[in-house]
């Protein structure tokens, strides 16, 4: 893949002016509301997901404010539970998932030499469903009884007790799920049918591969989630009893269905980041990605295994010995392909010629902290240990190491890497490095102590805690505010870059970067690859 170069880049900008003038962007609001251009839609996805990151982040800071000291100081427990729930839902469905779709929209056509996504109008629709979902989430705080407070997992029967806020969540999840399914279909069709001549599957950049696999995961799991929340809806309002044991249902059934969605969902949120890191590390090591084929196979292996391990989230429900052993073994196996990826990245750096611009810093930071999250994942895969730490802060630490240090740092790496291509100027490197170090340090201050809290037995989703846990909670809260405000550095930096403040970026913005996206000018013109490039 790394040897891919454009054999022939058509002079797109020239034809453009006279032949295709009517294909330029519309003026004003129509450009965005009726957008069908993959770059515009990608931009909207990314802006939307950053806005949701801030909303979810504010909720997290409200949680951390209450948890600064034991006792109830600021929020009633029922409101606190709404914050935890909506923080999770907004971050997952509003921020991480749409952000990766935004990256896919921008970069997949550029990386495979396609002129646009396969279904441009569906692309528009799948974006504009997102704000509707976001509004439902946000408005639900103000309905009687407040927002969903049953946790982002919405376990029955607690979710059956909730007020109308729960119905808002269910409807929002349906809408956002539909959006994800449409996005996934679009990506699959684009990758499979719209590659430039000569761009075989095994020449694609890894980001396209990981997204292709992710898209299949999404197609398989979003309907399962839709089924789970629909059953909640009918149990709540239409007299069914899927999850009511007294009427012949089973509350554990909900958890099985939910986690059959929920575990692959974890990989939906991390595989595209693997793809980004696999582009960034070779670019700044100036050396081809080590083990390209094994990276593809490892990604596929992770995706397949992800369907076979869901009940490791349910060890504490008390399943039979053999099923517990099976889910434990299968979960431990996932660490093998994941390890292969980490080894490959390190081997890519080995004897490279490295420089450490912000994308590389975030990539190395990603590998470092994601691996910590991976190791704690292996530790909690061991069922007896999980029995001790399940539903404690250890789990919070584990999945934030995977989701924040994993998904979010991966996205930042990609954002800095491609910002010159998106905006046409080099971002402010000093601010970028400040953003990295500030995020990296404050992230660890926030989440590392949570391992200790969990091992000592502090349960999660608690509005109040015993005084012995005070110090680590105070440290975590201080770190959380630091981390939260660090993200504003990124916002400022992106605003600067998007207003073209900075050095103009050449087409090949990074010395060691490879791939078709670097063969088009920076910023990438509104239309690219109208005539497909030929890949040697």
């Amino acid at each position, binding site marked *: 893949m790394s040897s891919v170069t454009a054999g022939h880049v058509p002079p797109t900008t020239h034809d453009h002016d006279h032949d295709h003038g009517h294909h330029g962007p519309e003026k004003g609001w129509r450009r965005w509301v009726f957008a069908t251009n993959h770059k515009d839609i990608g931009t909207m996805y990314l802006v939307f997901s950053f806005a949701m990151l801030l909303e979810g982040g504010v909720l997290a800071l409200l949680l951390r404010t209450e948890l*600064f*000291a*034991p*006792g*109830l*100081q600021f929020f009633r*427990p029922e409101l606190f*539970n709404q914050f935890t729930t909506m923080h999770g839902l907004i971050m997952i469905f509003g921020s991480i998932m749409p952000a990766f779709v935004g990256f896919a929209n921008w970069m997949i056509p550029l990386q495979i030499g396609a002129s646009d996504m396969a279904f441009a109008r569906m692309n528009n629709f799948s974006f504009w469903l997102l704000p509707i979902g976001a509004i439902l989430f946000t408005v639900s705080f103000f309905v009687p009884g407040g927002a969903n407070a049953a946790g982002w997992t919405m*376990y029955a*029967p*607690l979710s059956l007790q909730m007020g109308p806020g729960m119905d808002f969540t269910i409807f929002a999840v349906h809408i956002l799920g539909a959006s994800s399914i449409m996005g996934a279909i679009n990506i699959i069709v684009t990758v499979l049918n719209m590659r430039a001549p000569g761009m075989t599957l095994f020449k694609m950049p890894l980001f396209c591969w990981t997204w292709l696999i992710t898209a299949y995961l999404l197609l398989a799991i979003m309907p399962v989630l839709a089924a789970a929340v629909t059953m909640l809806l009918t149990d709540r309002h239409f007299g069914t009893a899927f999850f009511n*044991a*007294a009427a012949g249902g089973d509350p*554990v059934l909900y958890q099985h269905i939910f986690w059959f969605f929920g575990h692959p969902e974890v990989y939906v949120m991390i595989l595209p980041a693997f793809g980004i890191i696999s582009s960034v590390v070779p670019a700044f*090591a100036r050396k*081809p*990605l080590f*083990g390209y084929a094994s990276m593809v196979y490892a990604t596929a292996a992770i995706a397949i295994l992800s369907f076979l391990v869901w009940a490791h989230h349910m060890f*504490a*429900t*008390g399943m039979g*010995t053999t099923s*517990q*052993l099976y889910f*434990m073994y299968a979960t*431990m196996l996932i*660490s093998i392909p994941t*390890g292969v990826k980490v*080894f490959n990245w*390190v081997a890519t*750096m*080995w*004897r490279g*010629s*490295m*420089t450490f611009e912000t994308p590389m810093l975030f990539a190395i930071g990603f590998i470092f902290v994601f*691996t*910590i999250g991976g*190791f704690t994942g292996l*530790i909690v895969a*061991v*069922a*007896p*240990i999980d*029995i*001790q*730490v399940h*539903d404690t802060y250890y789990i919070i630490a584990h999945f934030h190491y995977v989701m924040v240090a994993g998904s979010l740092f991966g996205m930042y790496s990609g954002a800095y890497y491609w910002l010159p291509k998106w905006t046409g100027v080099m971002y402010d490197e000093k601010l970028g490095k400040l953003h990295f170090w500030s995020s990296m340090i404050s992230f660890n201050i926030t989440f590392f102590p949570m391992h*200790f809290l969990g*091992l*000592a*037995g502090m349960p999660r989703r*608690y509005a*109040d805690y*015993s*005084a*012995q846990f*005070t*110090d680590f909670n105070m440290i975590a809260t201080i770190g959380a505010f630091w981390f939260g405000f660090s993200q504003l550095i990124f916002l400022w930096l992106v605003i600067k870059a998007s207003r073209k403040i900075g050095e103009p970026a050449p087409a090949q913005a990074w010395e*060691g970067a490879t791939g078709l996206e670097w063969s088009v000018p920076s910023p990438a013109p509104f239309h690219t690859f109208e005539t497909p490039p030929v890949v040697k």
Partner: protein
Amino acid sequence: MMKEKGVLGICALFFSSAAFAQVGDMPGGPRVNQLNLTRGVTQVSSDIMDLHWLLLVICTVIFIGVFGVMFYSILMHRKSKGAVAAKFHEHVGIEIAWTAIPFLIIIAMAIPATRAVVAMKDTTSADVTVMVTGYQWMWGYEYLDGPAQGVKFLARLSTPRDQIEGRAPKTDTYLMETDNHMVVPVDKKVRVVLTANDVIHSWMVPDFGVKQDAMPGVLRDTWFRAEKAGIYRGQCAELCGKDHAFMPIVVEVLEQADYEQWAAEQQQAMQTAADDPTKTYELDELLARGEKVYAATCIACHQANGQGMPPTFPALVGDEAFVLAPMKNQIELVLNGRPGTAMAPFRDVLNDVEIAAAITYTRHAWGHNGKGPDPVVQPSDVTALR
């Protein structure tokens, strides 16, 4: 107004952090700034800790190895040091090695883990079985067998609101204390059968290595064998609504004899609560009940054979002044005690049924066979003299 509230909030934070500087380890609960799992008091919790150490060590070694290589590379293979990039991008041997070796390491981890799972899942041959029910937001306990069979009670958070809302300093057992404790014997296998009344809860006691969801309409079980007497604490571990953080678990592990004593007291207390003092009882009922009351309350002084330990504790056998006399004096004696002697008043300790039963018992035991006047005393007789 808002500003004042904010200032108050900040003051509360400072006040509270100052107050917690004094906090000590919680007996049977978390230590201050505890870093690792607890060793606990069961084989299971101890095995889990060993397992955790094993994994932690293996993971740390791999972590240091992998990131040692990475940071060496970051230091040495940088462009600013004139490093020139190599061209290699695959190596079949090394790729097979770093797939196969982790596989072997995982097998090495899985073997002790499997042993632990099998041990944790074995709930057979229990000595005591307790049914635990999760409620929003408290726990219910019911003993299904053993000396405490039939005993049942609820356990609620006993931390005062004043501590939660910051009007009183927090104690070392803040949020992990209950009005009633689950009581179990030491070194006995206790099987805990769990269900819930409303939503899913989870019964967690870290010192036992136990966490099991309690689900409405579903029965699940787990077990523990506490090897050391003491008080152990846990909390609800599954989000169950607004007071999720306020339904702790306190388990008191007692020596067998103390456990039996506790069971007898509970049984007694349950019967006490169920007694109807207006009913007229049969002689047999009174004798059976009286024997138990005598055994729980009177026996320490007056002895099982009724001979007492004169002169401090007089004999009841053949006593003409009270036992083999009209009932009035004996009832008043038991109700009010006798100042200046060891005989205490029992009017607040025993109810009318118990007093009547005990007195009737003394009039029939040890060969008295009801030979004195008023051989049968009914609760209503006691009520009349209170």
